[in-house]
């Protein structure tokens, strides 16, 4: 698959990354080479091999359903730009 400028800009927008025109053309080259490598991997016959969902050969440990956290709102909100009545304030979200 050929990577074009529009793909890069779309991916950047979805990830909320601001990129300059220069950077965009650089990413086109980088991503194209990465995709080429993936295409090479795709050519390997993986019939009968189950997909890897995690590189570690381990399974998820589970946690007992207990409340272990205490209220640390004041600490957390110290680094928030704006708070009011215990709420974090963000630029207005209009649907």
């Amino acid at each position, binding site marked *: 698959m050929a990577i074009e400028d529009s793909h890069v800009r779309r991916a950047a927008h979805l990830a909320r990354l601001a990129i300059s025109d220069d950077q965009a053309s650089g990413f086109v080259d980088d991503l194209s080479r990465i995709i080429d490598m993936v295409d090479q991997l795709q050519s390997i016959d993986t019939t009968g091999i189950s997909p890897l969902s*995690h590189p570690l050969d381990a*399974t998820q440990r589970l*946690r007992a359903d207990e*409340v272990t*956290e205490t209220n640390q*709102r004041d600490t957390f909100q110290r680094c928030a730009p704006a708070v009011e009545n*215990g709420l974090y304030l*963000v630029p207005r979200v209009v649907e």
Partner: protein
Amino acid sequence: MQWETVIGLEVHVQLATRSKIFSGASTAFGAEPNTQACAVDLGLPGVLPVLNEQAVAMAVQFGLAVHADIAEVSVFDRKNYFYPDLPKGYQTSQMYHPIVGPGEVEITLEDGSTKHIRIHHAHLEEDAGKSLHEDFHGMTGIDLNRAGTPLLEIVSEPDMRSAKEAAAYLKAIHSIVTYLGISDGNMAEGSMRCDVNVSVRPKGQEAFGTRAEIKNVNSFRFVERAIAFEVERQIELIEDGGSVVQETRLFDPDRDETRSMRTKEEANDYRYFPCPDLLPVVLDQAYLDHLRSQLPELPADKRERFQNELGLSAYDANVISASRDMAEFFEAVHSECGDAKQAANWVQGELSGALNRESLSIANSPISARQLGELISRVLDDTINGKAAKEVFQALWNGQGESADEVIEAKGLKQVTDTGAIEAMIDQVIADSPAQVAQYRDSEPEKRGKMIGYFVGQVMKASRGTANPQQVNGLLKEKLDALL
């Protein structure tokens, strides 16, 4: 043209765990904003999620209850999108390997018939926080207490063909999750939320029409209303030469309509990928067997048993088994009085009526199952008649006495079955009503049956309602006919 409606539902059920799905913060409802949002829920740098075993167990219990395949290995994925109430920038969900595979739910329709609705899958995910759009100096307020609350999203196949079927399906899911105790099912508090996929197609056509997804449908009634509106909108659109656009719509209960939610196209590109912070969840057979052995009797099984073993009608069995609290109350009443039909009548009639009037749930009934069962027993053994029973019920409801026997004693409601005493009252009534007796004597024999009602009423009044009505009827007829 004849149109057919096709409906599929995505139901989000908030699981009743004490702590969140990936953190040890409390899930209690109604706390001060952001007092139950810890570093993990806030997505602060360096934190790692640890999966709550109870959330896994609850998802599996649901799967077992709908006869689904439980995945031996399930995997969490990241669903990426930006919104201020989602601090991490992604929702941890299960896109490709959900914990619960295909299953099915039996629904009961109004005419008592049943239908099977297939479950496509159910997956675990975390809830987002809440955005408060009231004006905070032109800003939006964010409360992250709900962020990280475990959700089970149950996705049906498009098997429903009417708004009624969709509502019945939602009720069936509600019954199952509350029976299992995996959710409080409180729709008003958002513990159960529903997205509805609706499309229409010409009757007989195989291919599905283009569907619209309706969000924000949070009551059984709204599901029916939202679908009714949406079906009409789509049919009108097509019949006027237009076509349905695949989009997300919002149901507005105040205006009783659905409206398009204009969102940017990019917003729907979630770029799912496996969450590197979580390992695959592996469940073994012994664990599933253990959970299976803990399952309570489920609504469909109860309904069948009430009908087949206790002889209740399909309607009664369905209504009573729909809520676990009501089913258990009924069973306790039945074991006290031994008469299922009477127990069902009282629970659905007098008791439900009184509970509705005072907006009480059956769990908070002022009259206990034991008290009601004993009251019914006193009707069955002829200690009191039906009229007195209602009086006893009211007294127990108001807390005037601990038991039916106590109320019967205190109010002198014991039924008079002594023939001599009843005869004396009848003689008195006949002696006091010469005009009515003459009328009775002079009327056509077939009309006398009706006229006897007057005398029965007088005798019952004289006995202050305690005489056995059947006995009064029989004796009166004998005595009046003797005067002919």
